[in-house]
């Protein structure tokens, strides 16, 4: 190994105190500086942090943003979400392939550029988008992209190519991003005008149990999708006897089509950290972690700065607001893994390991981060907390429905004129949201992203709330000219790519789902394939180990249920006796090559001497 490289690795490990739990931070630094984490690097890292090579390799190969092969100095990651596909992803790929002379997934010979695609980067309201060395570029067109690429030949700092900044804090000197917030509708809880630190002051004047009681009375439920009562979660963590407890904020917003946490992280960072601090007081935690997805790394410096300011103001650290209460937060950067949005996987990732889910029980509130009781809450959930503490639980219950109190942030995107973030009261009919977003033509709406469901027009009157139409945020509208099967296939590809592979049904079953779906898409499906998909989906849902597997057949099952005609039109009974998916010519090809002659029976051209 070159001494210069060795120095970089040693420095990266030292900066993380040679702590194995900080493996992701170390790998990020090495990847940034050396463009790869090769075999020698893994060996040295293992030696320095008291691990072993194959364990480091296991972590490196788990996360999409780490690479064993050298990446380009300019690493381009085009966002390959279904919305980006509809907005011109393919044109961008062709543009780049032509300009750079490489294929998607390759690196130029001079090591200058590498070209990759990555699932949803949380920019569906300004697609098509790309990450270039973690700098976000939105609303790209082939000509804009070509200009960018030309400049990147000589300019290594992608940040300098951002000429116009987005609204709000996106123009902050520590962000300087072209991302726009697109806040289209505000309400009083999160995106309206908000008093500073009133919730924290109130909370610290109360006993922890009293804070938990207020949360319980407010009926706050987790905004990440599952809707678990937040007060109850805190109660469990507080009741578990332990020497330490942890508060983790889940900012791994990976669900395709969801970007509302991006807006909160940009515009409501103080509110979020205030919420984490209140949570810490309520459950008796001294340590907090913000798990920030790597796609949002452009916000990292800004968020670090806010933490620093809060420490300076006595809102974090020792003796917060002069009380006998100590709490601090560190930011853990993810590295490209959707599964880490699942709370126990997220904890594994924070521990510097492969982001695989843990066995439950014990639940994280009993034994989470390194075995200590851990509360994992979504960004939006934690942002609601200071508001409840400031205004009271009764005020909060004034919004929404009986079982879904408060407001909900929705990420609306797709075929609509006003994509962006909407704060609506729980109970709002979907049709109202669609109307506000300018989506008159929608014939299908995806609610909740890849793991959610695809619904048809008959269901647009349903209300957005836990008791009717729950969503973690995604509302993706599709006009009638969009191909439902293509969309479904995209989502299945997404799950195949993002499955951690730990359990059999999710690892293998989803591949089978995709193959059967492809058969139908290609017009080779038979009616029995529909039953096959249903049965297979049932097995995957029932036997998978975590939420990813439990929801991965949803794209297929919900489109089959709500758009049966789309499937019916594509399958046909086959009277010939051959399996419809079987192509005798394809099957014979390999044998033809080996035998170096054609088949007398199946190659009609043989007799006539044709090709």
């Amino acid at each position, binding site marked *: 190994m070159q001494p210069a490289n060795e120095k970089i690795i040693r420095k990266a490990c030292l900066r993380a105190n040679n702590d194995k739990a900080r493996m992701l931070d170390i790998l990020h630094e090495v990847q940034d500086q050396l463009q790869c984490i090769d075999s020698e690097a893994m060996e040295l890292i293992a030696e320095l942090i008291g691990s072993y090579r194959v364990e480091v390799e296991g972590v490196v190969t788990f996360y999409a943003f780490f690479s064993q092969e050298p990446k380009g100095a300019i690493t381009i990651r085009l966002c390959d979400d279904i919305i980006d596909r509809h907005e011109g992803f393919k044109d961008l790929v062709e543009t780049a392939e032509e300009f750079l002379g490489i294929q998607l997934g390759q690196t130029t010979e001079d090591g200058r550029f590498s070209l990759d695609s990555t699932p949803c980067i949380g920019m569906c309201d300004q697609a098509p988008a790309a990450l270039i060395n973690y700098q976000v570029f939105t609303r790209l067109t082939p000509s804009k992209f070509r200009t960018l690429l030309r400049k990147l030949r000589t300019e290594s700092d992608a940040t300098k190519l951002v000429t116009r900044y987005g609204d709000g804090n996106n123009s902050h000197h520590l962000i300087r991003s072209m991302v726009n917030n697109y806040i289209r509708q505000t309400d009083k809880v999160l995106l309206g005008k908000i008093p500073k630190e009133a919730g924290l002051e109130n909370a610290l004047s109360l006993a922890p149990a009293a804070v938990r009681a207020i949360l319980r009375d407010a009926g706050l439920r987790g905004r990440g999708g599952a809707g678990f009562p937040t007060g109850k979660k805190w109660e469990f963590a507080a009741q578990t006897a332990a020497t330490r407890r942890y508060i983790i904020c889940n900012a791994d917003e990976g669900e395709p089509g969801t970007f509302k946490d991006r807006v909160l992280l940009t515009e409501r960072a103080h509110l979020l950290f205030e919420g984490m601090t209140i949570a810490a007081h309520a459950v008796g935690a001294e340590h907090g972690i913000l798990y920030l997805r790597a796609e949002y790394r452009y916000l990292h410096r800004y968020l670090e700065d806010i933490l620093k300011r809060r420490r300076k103001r006595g809102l974090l650290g020792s003796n917060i607001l002069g009380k006998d209460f100590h709490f601090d937060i560190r930011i853990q950067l993810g590295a490209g893994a959707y599964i880490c949005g699942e709370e126990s996987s997220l904890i594994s990732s924070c521990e510097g390991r492969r982001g695989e889910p843990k066995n439950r029980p014990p639940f994280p509130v009993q034994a989470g981060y390194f075995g200590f009781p851990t509360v994992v809450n979504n960004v939006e959930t934690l942002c609601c907390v200071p508001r409840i503490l400031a205004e009271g639980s009764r005020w909060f219950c004034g919004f929404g429905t009986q079982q879904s109190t408060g407001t909900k942030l929705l990420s609306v995107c797709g075929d609509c004129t006003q994509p962006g973030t909407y704060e609506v009261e729980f109970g709002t009919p979907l049709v109202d949201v669609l109307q506000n977003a300018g989506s008159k033509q929608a014939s299908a709406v995806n609610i909740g992203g890849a793991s959610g469901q695809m619904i048809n027009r008959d269901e647009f009157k349903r209300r957005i709330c836990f008791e009717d139409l729950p969503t973690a945020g995604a509302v993706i509208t599709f006009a009638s000219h969009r191909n439902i099967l293509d969309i479904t296939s995209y989502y299945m590809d997404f799950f195949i790519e993002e499955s951690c592979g730990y359990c059999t049904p999710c690892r293998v079953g989803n591949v089978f789902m995709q*193959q059967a779906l492809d058969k139908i898409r290609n017009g080779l499906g038979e009616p029995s394939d529909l039953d096959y998909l249903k049965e297979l989906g049932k097995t995957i849902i029932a036997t998978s*180990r975590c939420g990813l597997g439990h929801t991965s057949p949803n794209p297929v099952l919900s489109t089959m249920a709500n758009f049966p005609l789309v499937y019916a039109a594509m399958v046909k009974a086959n009277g010939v006796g051959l399996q419809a998916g079987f192509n005798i010519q394809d099957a014979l090809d390999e044998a033809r090559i080996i035998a170096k002659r054609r088949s007398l029976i199946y190659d009609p051209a043989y007799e006539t001497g044709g090709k």
Partner: protein
Amino acid sequence: MTTKAKTFTIYVDGEAVQAVPGQTIMDACDEAGGYIPRLCDVEGLVPQGSCRICTVKVNGRTVAACTQPAEPDLQVEHETREIHSYRKDLVRMLFHEGNHLCPICEASGRCELQAMAYRLGISQATKYPYLQPVRPVDASHPDIALDNNRCILCGRCIRASRDVDGKNVFEYIGRGIDKHIGVNGANLAATDADIDDYAMSLDVCPVGCIIRKKEGFFNPVGDRQFDRHPIGWEIESKRIPTTDISGPAGSDQEVKP
């Protein structure tokens, strides 16, 4: 450990099974002589719940019996038609994920995947497509070869090496359908793997992935591990002591070569 006082009862398909705190559903059933099919779990290693073949239903929710703690009065559904069908699907998935060509595999007859298929009544090609992976074979080590094409990712070798041998020869690499077992070096010969490691013993690899060189096909057909008894027989024989070698008492299950 004398925790007799704390013994409690769980109900498996309605039948009372005694359990003690700290036991999983599978532990309790094993002790009572009730076999729950499993591939990734084996006596002596920490259960990890990855193959999912031990899926049972508890209070209407499906869970892995090998990791789910037994609790007083738990109602466990085990041999229902629904659970049986899930298990068959999972075993089929494993067969179709890798390249399992029983007639040319030295593990045939002592292969747990094969034996499980027979036990669950899978004896012919199934509805799933074959993925036919082409994974490299590592024959670098003088005494051991690894044919990853037969790996079912049970991770038993990882745990055996780490927890029993105190080495770290194996670890999971990659994710999703590309997930596979990696070795702690450029190849197996570059690691401290030894033929006498517990991880390399016949007890650990349930299939023909870890191959002990120069000793394949050591048992003639008829004498192999699962030729006379179906998989799970040792556990079931606890319940019904029998001298009959044709299998668990009352079972007329045909065991095919």
